[in-house]
Structure formats: structure tokens, C-alpha cells
């Protein structure tokens, strides 16, 4: 369970203060598949970064599985990221020097699993995303869709409770995007809570719940209303 109450995030640069999130409150139950949409610059990535412990919040309360995140130090935050959260990024973010196998291995090594356990998990995750035949390929030798599948395998390898995806299909064509979404649905059905930021309303539609972010504020609304909102903006 993921719970935010009055979360604010302010970015300060020399000249400007950006209120990226203002009084952000929401609760995501275990097993939900939540899509997040909203105009560019509205704060979607900021929300995801805070939810994923990649950034610290300025004020408010964020509880993950009942635990107050702001009390954690850097080491504990790293551990929560490693154990509870899987990330999927728009630009895949595979490590170019490492082959598919070693890429999926990265979070497992930080977890401290032994070699046998790591290999078992890597191969079963690659199996799950349909890339078990290419463990020795390097990211540059794979298509965008395949790279994103490796990234999903990497996110799943640690068996996280939450999967956070920022525009996971943004760099993929429709066909590939659909298949990635099928995969996410499947993962969600297996029990993982997913929060996915997307521009594509058709994809957002496939989530159980739709959140709409505008000017750093969150609205629990179906995506059809966004169209109207975007049109009038």
C-alpha cells in the first residue's frame, strides 16, 4: 500500500522556485494498476520519482507499506528501492556495457543473492519477457521493444511489490507498445502493483484506475475528461 498525504515538491534553482507537486494526496492499494496522465510539466515524473524514492519530498507524508519514508537514511532508501520497487523508464536505461544477463543481474547483486539464486531469477524473468534466448546480447544489439522487455525483466527480477513505469511505451511503436502493455497487465494480474505514467489515453484506459495530474495537483478522473481539459487549456 502506497499512501501520500499533502506531499509538496519544490525545485529551487537560483532564480525560480517550481512547485512541481502541490498538496499531493493519494492512496494506491495493493494489486492496483494505476495510470497517470497529464500535460507535459504537470508533475507526473516528479510524483513517480518521489513514489520510487529517487527524490526526496519537500513536505508532506509518504508511507510505503505503512512505513514513513522521510525517516529513512540513504542506505535504507536504497534498500527499499532494491527490494520493493521496480522501475521501467521511457528510454529503457539498460547499461550499455553489460549484456542482457548482466543487466538483469544488477539489482540482484545489490540484493546480495548468491550466484545460483541470481541465475535462476534472471533466466526465469527473461523467460517471462520472452528473451531467454538472448542473455549474451548487448543492448545495442536489440530492438527498442526487446530492450524494454529486458528492462522489465530487470525490474521484475527482485520480485518487487511495486512497479513504477514512466512512459514505458513512449519510445515504442504501437505494436510494441501493445505487447509491452500486455506484459504489464500480466504482471499486474500476478499481484504486482503498477503505477504507469503515459501520454497514450488508449493505454491509460487499460489500467484499473486513472489519475490525472495538472499543475502539480492530482485528480482521480477517467482519461476521457483529460481530453476536454487539455482542449480547454
Amino acid at each position, binding site marked *: 500500500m502506497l499512501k501520500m498525504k499533502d506531499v509538496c515538491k519544490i525545485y529551487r534553482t537560483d532564480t525560480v522556485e517550481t512547485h512541481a507537486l502541490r498538496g499531493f494526496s493519494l492512496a494506491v492499494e495493493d494489486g492496483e494498476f494505476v495510470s497517470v496522465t497529464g500535460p507535459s510539466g504537470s508533475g507526473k*515524473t516528479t510524483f*513517480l*520519482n518521489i513514489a*520510487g*524514492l*529517487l*527524490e526526496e519530498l519537500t513536505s508532506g507524508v509518504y508511507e510505503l507499506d505503512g512505513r514513513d519514508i522521510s525517516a529513512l537514511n*540513504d*542506505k535504507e532508501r*536504497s*534498500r527499499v*528501492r*532494491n*527490494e520493493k520497487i521496480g*522501475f521501467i*523508464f*521511457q*528510454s529503457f*536505461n539498460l*547499461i*550499455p*556495457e*553489460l*549484456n542482457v544477463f*548482466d543487466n538483469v*543481474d*544488477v*539489482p540482484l*547483486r*545489490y*540484493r546480495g543473492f548468491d550466484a545460483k539464486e541470481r541465475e535462476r531469477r534472471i533466466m526465469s524473468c527473461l523467460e517471462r519477457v520472452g528473451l531467454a534466448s538472448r542473455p549474451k546480447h*548487448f543492448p545495442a544489439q536489440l530492438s527498442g521493444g526487446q530492450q524494454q522487455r529486458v528492462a522489465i525483466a*530487470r525490474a521484475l527480477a*527482485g520480485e518487487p511489490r511495486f512497479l513504477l513505469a*514512466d512512459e514505458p511505451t513512449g519510445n515504442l511503436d504501437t505494436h510494441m507498445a501493445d505487447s509491452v502493455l500486455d506484459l504489464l497487465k500480466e504482471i499486474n494480474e500476478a499481484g504486482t502493483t503498477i503505477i504507469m505514467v503515459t501520454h497514450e489515453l488508449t493505454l491509460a484506459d487499460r489500467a484499473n484506475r486513472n489519475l490525472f495530474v495538472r499543475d502539480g495537483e492530482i485528480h482521480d478522473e477517467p482519461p476521457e475528461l483529460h481530453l476536454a481539459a487539455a482542449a480547454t487549456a
Partner: protein
Amino acid sequence: MDIGPIWRAMLRNKAGFVLIALQVAVTLTIVVNAFGIIQERAGRIARDSGVDEANTFAFASVLFTDYEREQRKVLIDEDLDLIRNVPGVVNAVASNSFPLRQGGWSMGVALEPGNQTPESVGTAIYFVDEHGAETFDVTVIDGKNFTPEQVTWSLEDDNTWPAYGIITEALGKEMWPDDAGSYVGKTMYINDNDPVNIVGVIDTLQAPWESWTGVERSMLVPQRRPSEFVRYIVRAEPGMRDKLMPEIEAMLAASNKDRIIRDMTTMDDVRKLAYVGDTALIKILGFIVVLLTLITALGIVGLASFNVSRRTRQIGIRRALGATRPSIVRYFLIENSIVSAIGLVVGSALAIGLNIVMVEAFSLEPLAWYVIPAGVIALWAVGQIAVAEPARRASNISPAIATRSS
């Protein structure tokens, strides 16, 4: 523990690492061999001359008026009497030379009388009276110092060698290798046929030539030589040397106007002059060692910094995937250890090779067993220290990089 993927990632970006490994190898090769030479030279400099160097000085008295032999004897006796009575003087002696002076008298000594054979052993000769031992600060470890009766003036037209001698232990060992510790009472022959009875053995008194392989072999000979040129060696009480030098110079200059006092010098300066080449070599090699190490360290800093910038994104991703700050630092330390290990293994082989060549070519001592291991550890540590700051910067990269830049 993470060596596998770090190593595989390095293979995808070899060039920089190969260069650094090479640099480490060359640095180790040169550094340990330079260190070997430094060590050898420093060892030579560190040898004990036997003299109480800090408190001893020497000078010459040169007559420029014709003196009869007897007059010269009187002058030397007067001079020594004056010097020995100056408060603060421990003792003084007139001798032909002293350790580290680079000039002196050497003779061959043999077990049997007769023409000098190839088996005769070279030794430095110091002509002294019974005050020689104390002035040179040598300990008579066996037998006795000369008695005043044993000390004689050299005779005109008579080259017969005095019948007594005090030898260093090193000379005794060279002459009678099987009779360690019992040289007193033995006889050896000098000047072809003149017997020398060993009356005493002293611990250490170097010959005047520091670069001679027999530098530890010398002999005190109880003879005084009344020449126009007399060399005085004065041993002062601790702290008195610098006060006594001008004082004694002025005193002797005033006591007799037919001679000049010159070549006033401390043993410290004599030592400096004797080892000026060795000291310079040590400094140059030391400078090279430091410079090469520094250049290598900078190379490592440079490559690591470059890699941190190049991998900014990947580091953020690793952080997002659960890497702690220390594990990012560890990544760079391990990576550097791998490069260093390769460089140091290659460097050790090169260092041994170069040492073999140098031992052959310049008849140097081979490197002590610990020099290469010590160099390996030192250069590894330098690498780790060099990489620490870029690694620390890497560990501060925000995990948000993973979502922010594309």
C-alpha cells in the same frame, strides 16, 4: 565480489584501462629499480666511518719557511700540546689522513715476507701516536692501544716499517679468516719484509676512500712524520666544535708565524663532499620516483573522472536499482584494483627483468625480496587513493538522473 560484471564492462571499453595499466607497469618497473639504487646508495652513506663525525674537525699546518727536521718535530709537539690543552678538546692527533677524505696512504700486507704477492691484502694506513685511538673515536676491542714507547718518529733515509700495528677487525678477518677474534699477537709483513706485530684490534675505522671495496680495512701505525705539511685532527666535546675551530685556528696562527693554517673543515663537510655524487643520485632518483608516481596518480584520477562523467546516467540507474553510495564507490575501487593488478603483474615481471639487466651491466646488488611487493602495495594504494575522489563524486549522483535525462 562484483568482479565479474565489472571486468566484462571494462572489456567493452578497453583503451583507457590498457593505457593506465601500462602506465602502472612502467611506473612500478622504474620506481622499484630506482628505489633499489637509492637503497644501495643510502646504505653506503649510512656506513659508520668510525669517527665521531659530529664533533671532529681537521686542518693542515703548512710551513713556508725552511725548518730542520728537529725544528719540525718541536713544532708538531708544541702544536699538539697547545691543542690538547684547549678546554673543550677531547683529543687531537697529527695524521696523514682520515676517513672519507678521499686521499690517503695504502699498503699491501701479507702473511709471509717477500715480494708483494697477489695474495697480499690492501689496507689504509693512518700514522698516529697513542692519542690516535681516542681522537678517531675507535674502541680497542682486543689487545691494547699503543704505549708512548711504541710511538717513534720516522727516520730520514730509513724506510723500515714500525714493528707494531693496530688493525680493524675487517682487516684481521681478511688476513686470517679462520681465526676470528684472535688477531692480537699475530705477525704480518708489510713493505715486503718488515714484520708488523698486531698489538690491538679496533672495531670500525674506514679507509679514506668510501668507494673502495676494502673501505673497512685500515691500520693504525705508531709513527710520527715531521714533514712541512702536517694534518691535524681534533675531536671536540659535544657542542664545542664550531666554537673551537676559529679559536684553534687563531691560536696556532699566532703561536708560529712561519706557517699557515688551512683546509679547516668539519667531518660533516668531509662526509658531504665524499658522498656528493651519491646524494645527488638519490635526489634525482627520488624525484623521478615521486614524479612518475604523481603522473600515474593523475592518469588514474583523469580516467576515473572521465568514466564518472561518461557513466553519469548508468550510475543514476544503478542507484535507482538499489545501489547504495558505498557500493558505487566500491565499483570504482574494484575497477581500479583490476587495472592496477594487471599493471602490477606486468610491472613486476618488467621490474625483475630490468633489475637483472642492471645487476649485470652495473654490478649492482639485486633488489631485496621485499622491494617489489612493497612497490606493488604502494602503487595499489596510490591507485585507490587517486580513484577515491572521483568515486565519491560518482556516489553523489542522484538516482533521479534515471528518469530526468533521456
